[in-house]
């Protein structure tokens, strides 16, 4: 019984790994940039 559980857990892990590789798609990253804030805690009206 313990072996079956072990085999199943390995199978699930491998499947998840493969699924991630195939369906992963492009990576998305967002960069948020500030500059010259110069001590302004409250934004100047834009």
């Amino acid at each position: 019984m313990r072996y079956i559980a072990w085999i199943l857990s390995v199978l699930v892990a491998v499947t998840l790994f493969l699924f991630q590789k195939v369906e992963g798609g492009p990576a998305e990253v967002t960069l948020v940039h500030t500059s010259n804030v110069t001590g302004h805690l409250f934004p100047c009206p834009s």
Partner: protein
Amino acid sequence: MEKDRAEGTPVLVVDSGDLFFMTKAKVDPEKASAKARLIGRAYRRMAAVAVNVGDLDLLQGLDFLRKEASQGLPLISANLLDPSSRTPIFDPYVIQKVSGIRIAFFGLLSPNFQPEIADPMRKTVGERIFIKDPVEAAQEMVLKLRDKVDMILLLSDLGNYREHELVKAVPGIHFVFGGPEGRGLAQPNREGKTYMFQSYAKGMYVGKLRLTIKNPGLPFQDEGRVSRLQGEIRNLDRHLQDLQKQQAGQPNPEVAQRIQWIQQQKARFQEQLRQFSGAPSQENHFLWTLEPLNASLSEDEDIKGWIQEAGIDPD
């Protein structure tokens, strides 16, 4: 930012310099320090990943910055060195691994201070700093980082002209975030394969760069170019309609020539648009936008509380 993070998109907050202080002569140093400490706290709260040291950040001395760094603010500079050991005073770069992509940020400041801060700077940091040539520092950084990471980004307090010169001399930098001049760029500047961005000043706007990375080794395409081309075509169409109406009422050879020129221009833009939005590209994409920080955005209650506790009034 919180919305993007909640949707599962990794968000990296960066600042390219001159975060803490301004040059005004009549600033109460205690009040300026209190505000600077709050700004440092707010950037830590936003989990900023890299904050470049700009020349104005040195106005209250190194001790303030060292304290901020010791409290967890990720201050970086690749060319701000200790004059005796010639080693960086702060980390020269940071590396972030997000969605399997390794991104390095390094920072640079200009060795030529603005005339209005040269004197106060001598008093606060004097002989305690040495600023290395930015091009040399950038060459060292790219050499060191290019085999370790997928992308190299520069946070720059150099100014637009110097950034162009640097990027020409040092290939291998993907993006440059700059802006000591306080201007904003609705569309990025480009030098070779490097794109350069600026996000205004005084917290009026933040720049948002959304990256879609298929293969970090390949060049990036500017997604905003499609909407800009569509806008150009719409403008030309409007102009064309006006001229055609005019021509229908009273034919004029000069107007006919202008119509022909606009039609050629439109065809050129349409061809560019067709090429750009045709077959799905294997390249990486980015979309750059400037987001105004105005009263419609909700405030972070904790940070609002810190400001009230400190008794700091609006600027």
